């Protein structure tokens, strides 16, 4: 086998050198499932952006219509209507924007904090590392879902608090990944070189260390968006998530429980929406991992 890889390696040498990004892109495109994930994610983002524009929140998304409650799927309502006569298709689509935006915002917040903490811990090491990571350990000692539940329960369920709760449970994960990545590049030659020419610590971290630790961080980010969306759905399902009447998949599923026997279609579409979203993000994340680090394949 080693001979095969060696030969493969040789084969690649003759290929013209391309920028790293283009290379990653090429490898990603080669991976059909990852590409499928990417296409679905792009579609979902489009749905997320367009549905608040296309559908009027007041009249189409949350307006109740008692004359058409609990209608099974039909031409007028392809996914049927819910117990308040609202169109499930519109609500499912609209919820995409809620879930995706919260997912992305949360991950951005968690990433920002995690980057700072993780790179500080990884770069400086010693006491800084110990203190930061011990605190992170405390957060990691509580299963993420439970920590988020506690925070939302305490602060009340608003979108802001939801973001805070999810971010708090995600920060330690990012801090860990960043720390690990930073530590591997910290002692590499180009960082030593930067240090030798007298660059400041922050400059080194942000200009030399982090860009070279991107691969695991990007992968973690993609996968974490999926985790957060799943987690928000879970919180909403137990009534600690997005406050009604704003549509959210988990909350829609929770509402469908009472109608599961006679109106089982109600519990299908929001669930499918979650699954497709998570599936595509996972496919993309896996694909990115493989594309960014071909050794892992």
């Amino acid at each position, binding site marked *: *086998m*080693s*001979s*095969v890889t*060696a*030969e*493969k390696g*040789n*084969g*690649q*040498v*003759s290929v013209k050198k391309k920028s790293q990004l283009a290379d990653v892109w090429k490898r990603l495109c*080669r991976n059909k499932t990852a590409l499928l994930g990417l296409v679905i994610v792009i579609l979902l983002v489009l749905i997320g952006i367009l549905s608040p524009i296309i559908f009027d929140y007041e009249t189409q998304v949350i307006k109740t219509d008692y004359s058409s409650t609990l209608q099974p799927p039909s031409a007028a309502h392809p996914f049927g209507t819910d117990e308040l006569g609202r169109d499930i298709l519109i609500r499912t689509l609209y919820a995409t924007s809620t879930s995706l935006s919260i997912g992305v915002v949360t991950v951005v917040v968690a990433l920002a904090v995690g980057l700072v903490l993780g790179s500080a811990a990884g770069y400086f090491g010693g006491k800084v590392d110990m203190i930061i990571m011990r605190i992170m350990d405390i957060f990691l000692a509580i299963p993420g879902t439970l920590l988020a539940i506690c925070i939302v329960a305490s602060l009340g369920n608003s979108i802001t608090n939801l973001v805070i709760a999810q971010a708090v449970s995600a920060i330690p994960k990012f801090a860990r990944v960043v720390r690990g990545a930073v530590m591997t590049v910290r002692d590499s030659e180009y960082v030593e070189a930067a240090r030798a020419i007298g660059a400041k610590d922050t400059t080194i971290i942000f200009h030399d260390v982090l860009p070279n630790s991107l691969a695991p961080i990007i992968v973690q980010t993609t996968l974490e968006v999926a985790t957060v969306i799943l987690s928000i759905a879970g919180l909403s399902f137990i009534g600690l998530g997005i406050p009604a009447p704003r549509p959210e998949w988990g909350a829609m599923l929770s509402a469908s429980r009472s109608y599961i026997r006679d109106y089982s279609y109600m519990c299908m579409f929001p669930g499918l929406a979650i699954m497709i979203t998570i599936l595509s993000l996972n496919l993309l994340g896996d694909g990115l991992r493989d594309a960014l680090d071909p050794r892992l394949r």
Partner: protein
Amino acid sequence: MSEDVKKDLTAEIKDLVIEFRTDYGVVQALNGLELEIERGKTLGLVGETGAGKTTTGLSLLRLIPNPPGVIVSGSIKLDGKDILSMSEKEMQDIRGKTVAMIFQDPMTSLDPVMTVEQQIAEVIKLHEEGGQAEALKRAREMLELVGIPGSRGGEYPHQFSGGMKQRVVIAMALACNPELLIADEPTTALDVTIQAQVLEMMKGLREKYNTSMLMITHDLGIVAEICDKVSVIYAGRVIEHGTLEDIFKNTRHPYTEGLFNSLPNLEDRQAELKPIKGLMPDPSNLPKGCAFCPRCDYAMEICKTQKPDRTYRNDTHYVECHLYNKDNIQEGKVKSR
């Protein structure tokens, strides 16, 4: 010509073509390889990294990973029997018993979660009579034989140094008295002092058991020390073959010559080191003519378009190069134009 002479061959490979079919294209690993290993003798297989040496070794065990490796054509015979037509079960009986292999990197060649004596006993139990206890006893004897106290048999590979691990691998390979031992760069990963010890040990063991051996290496020093015959392999094909004397004293192929020239000469340290220019050709895109042509100082027009035929200098020595024909083969190297 040589067909007429009846040789006692342990292994014989004829016109072997092996391809690796990957996403990146089809790689021609072996390209009509021919090989003969005489009983009790040692054949050196010399070439650069990526020339197909390990593939050749693995093909004798029929262990080419498939996918992506595919044996396209050719034959591999052990003791005159074609192994390509054998069942998997028959092959399992051959592996470790008739043919054993020592791998390049002792660090990764041992299962990290099994004691070394168990790993040796495993092969003994598979191929010899007797139970677990007897196999373990034999395993410890084998360890002693390669210079490791039998009492350390209960330890795990991570508790051994690199040289000792390679001894374990050798003990494992020799445990069932194989007829053919394939040693794939057995000393490359080791320190120089350890290299000598291991080589010395292998030599001793080979003589003791009269084992045939295929010594895969890129180190001409090892070849000189241990081999009876030498095959020089380039891009999946033997381009020059002969006895030690044929190759060392009557070098014909420009590539073989290049290999010698890239060695430092102790007697004349002023002499210029002449590494072979360039790299191995992309095995997924081999030149139409002679594979060595792009790197050859003597390349002619014909080299670019046509594959060279085999030319014999004597019964034991042949070369594949357009520089030579029946008439000029005895004269030696054609001077550069």
